[in-house]
């Protein structure tokens, strides 16, 4: 019998047909994982492994004093960038993130050498050594940084989405930010305008459980971040950020919605960073057991590896990938160490584009 069950009085969504608050989450629940071919999963595996080995090497170079300042490693979160960015249209869709940006660059297939050389502050770095770990860009790939002020990338990403819509080029923007940034006021200013103007943007909260050293429970009144768009009529999705195929599937659902002109989507990717917030973080706010537990039970790379072996990929061919990745990272480190520092004259270039 229709209408037998009256909606709960405070559930407005039942009476608001235009508002697809839960439809995306429901679509994702019905079909959680992307059905990757062996080749696709191998490719994801290699990308994730590259990020991990690259970041481990960066940690070593930091310890040797070759990398200075702040250096935020992406270890543990690899499946997020790889899964999401694999679903984008290359050369059209844009991506922006915060300062933990090495992984997002690598997920684009950008040469690890110019990324590592940026970390060591060398002329051949992707920003000529002037940006450093937190400020890397590849306009060619439509990767717009690399931003050091927590949360700033969210309105900037909304601006990129605005440009897509203005040009009517069919592109979408993926704006990553963390559970810490999710408490910044400008994030909600952006939610409001993005939803109001139906901007083609996916807000991606990489919830790695800690805003620097503050656990989400100690900083956030609503720890289910995917719900935080509700007040702005932005549908939310909660995704296991440790499973690259689940991430990929969720990305497809979100992108289809956004590219269809339906306005923004908010995705919460539950993930975990194994290392400290930055290299100088002693990580006293959590136990070794907690970190070890995630490593053993939820590691995205081990997960993919197991799945590949179930698909019939041999141990030997996985070892071959591992070797290839180690070689690439080793070469990147050598390049980054041996490249010259920027010319002194570079100090004064690129301040302004024009001469007045």
């Amino acid at each position: 019998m229709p209408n037998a069950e009256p909606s709960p009085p405070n559930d407005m969504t039942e009476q608001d047909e235009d508002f697809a608050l839960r439809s995306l989450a429901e679509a994702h629940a019905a079909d959680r994982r992307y059905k990757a071919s062996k080749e696709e999963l191998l490719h994801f595996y290699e990308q994730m492994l590259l990020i991990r080995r690259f970041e481990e090497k960066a940690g070593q170079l930091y310890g040797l004093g070759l990398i200075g300042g702040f250096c935020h490693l992406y270890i543990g979160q690899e499946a997020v960038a790889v899964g999401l960015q694999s679903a984008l249209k290359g050369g059209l869709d844009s991506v922006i993130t915060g300062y933990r940006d090495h992984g997002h660059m690598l997920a684009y297939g950008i040469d690890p050498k110019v990324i590592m050389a940026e970390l060591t502050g060398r002329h051949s770095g992707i920003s000529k050594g002037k940006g450093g770990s937190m400020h890397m860009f590849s306009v060619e790939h439509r990767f717009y940084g690399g931003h050091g002020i927590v949360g700033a990338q969210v309105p900037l990403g909304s601006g990129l989405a605005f440009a897509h819509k203005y040009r009517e080029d069919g592109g979408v923007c993926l704006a990553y930010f963390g559970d810490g940034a999710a408490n910044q006021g400008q994030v909600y200013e952006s939610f409001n305008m993005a939803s109001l103007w139906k901007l083609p943007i996916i807000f991606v909260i990489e919830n790695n459980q800690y805003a620097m050293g503050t656990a989400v429970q100690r900083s956030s009144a609503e720890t289910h971040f995917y719900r935080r768009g509700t007040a702005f009529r932005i549908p939310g999705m909660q995704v296991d950020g440790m499973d690259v195929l689940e991430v990929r599937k969720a990305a497809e659902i979100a992108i289809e919605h956004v590219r269809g002109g339906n306005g923004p989507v908010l995705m919460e990717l539950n993930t975990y960073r194994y290392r400290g917030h930055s290299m100088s973080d002693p990580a006293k706010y959590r136990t070794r057991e907690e970190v070890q537990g995630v490593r053993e039970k939820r590691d995205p790379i081990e997960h993919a590896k197991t799945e590949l072996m179930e698909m019939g990929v041999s141990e030997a061919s996985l070892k071959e990938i591992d070797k290839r990745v180690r070689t690439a990272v080793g070469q990147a480190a050598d390049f980054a160490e041996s490249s010259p520092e920027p010319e002194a004259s570079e100090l004064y270039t690129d301040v302004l584009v024009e001469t007045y």
Partner: protein
Amino acid sequence: MGVEIKMPALSPTMEEGKLAKWLVKEGDEVSSGDILAEIETDKATMEFEAVDEGTVGKIMVPEGTEGVKVGTVIAVMAGEGDEAEAASAPAAEGPDEQPAPAAKTKDKAPKVEKPEQQLKADESDAGAPAEKGGDSKLETGTTQLASEVKPATSAEIPHGTNMKSATVREALRDAMAEEMRRDERVFVMGEEVAEYQGAYKVTQGLLDEFGPKRVIDTPITEYGFAGIGTGAAMGGLRPIVEFMTFNFAMQAIDHIINSAAKTNYMSGGQMRCPVVFRGPNGAAARVGAQHSQNYGPWYASVPGLVVIAPYDASDAKGLLKAAIRSEDPVVFLENELVYGRSFELPEMDDHVLPIGKARVVREGKDVTIVTYSIGVGVSLEAAEQLAAEGIEAEVIDLRTLRPLDKEAVLASLKKTNRLVVAEEGFPVCSIASEIIAICMEDGFDDLDAPVLRVNNEDVPLPYAANLEKAALIDVPRVVEAVKKVCYR
């Protein structure tokens, strides 16, 4: 007993307006809240409501009258029980009242007619209460910033160019409209820029011509929309982000500095950010400390930004067009008190001026006054007074605060050997401080006297009219400083 209805001040800067339309006629009964008339101000057309009930006795100023001074009696109401005719007596008082001293107007302040202007209209003036008696030469600080002396025609304008009279407001609007016609990527966003036609009418008419895709009303969310504008520039568009005033841009300063100014450098020249942030800057009339500040020195201290602060209509137009075309992020500082001033504007197909070049707005041989924005008018007035006393002052309008035209300052110093900086803004770490440093570093041998600066007092801008007057720069202070460096 008749009650006078006077021309209301509907904005902090309104001195006169047009009585566009009467919506009542003599003998009509009105009650509180009825619309009596439509009044066109320098910013908008506003409805003027009755506060009390009564009968319209006599209409003193017919509709269509332009230039009706604030405080002029425009109608007389017959009070309760009065006959309409009985109220016709005090007719002539209005116009006669015009030259009345401030105190008189103030004494009459508790007028019966308190325009219950729509709150929105008040907000358009940044939340400021309507100032009473703006015509009365009330002794406020901003009246002393007025100026009748016009700058000399800029050397960049070809000789023989036809000139027309235009306000700075019109010049800015025309600059945006021309650039929007020229380049599809240019759009304007900000609070009340579209349907409201601009809080200060600067974007008037743009929505009609370019539509809501390119003229975009934002929510009141400066941090957010400054970020969106900056991101859109990174994504290849040419945004003009209007701040209702630069005081509100403090909410957004992170994006202006950290996102817009630094990106090109941090990316090794890969990622440009051709955005224009514009809006009124500096002290307005009686709006208190939070709405009255000159941010020129703040932005001018940041590498990666271009900072422009024009004075007259020609510079406003020519430099705004250049700013929109620039590949760099530009902070474009306007001045509310100057919006309504009329100047000569060249009639050219494409009037674009060079960024980073100062301009001699008055030639002189005895002393140099370096200034910018509203300080130009004050300095020109001072130069006139000084000329009467035999001192010929050269007045340099910096126009661009970053990059600063050091050469123009030093060339004038070489000629006059004496220099004063006049700046409507705080004295500490000011543009004046910078000019003095430049003179010390690069012009020391040309100096016959220490450089002096005339700035606002080093206090938050007060509300009280007398204190505001004391806080802001004025002509006598500039004159005094010039005489001092001339040892006169």
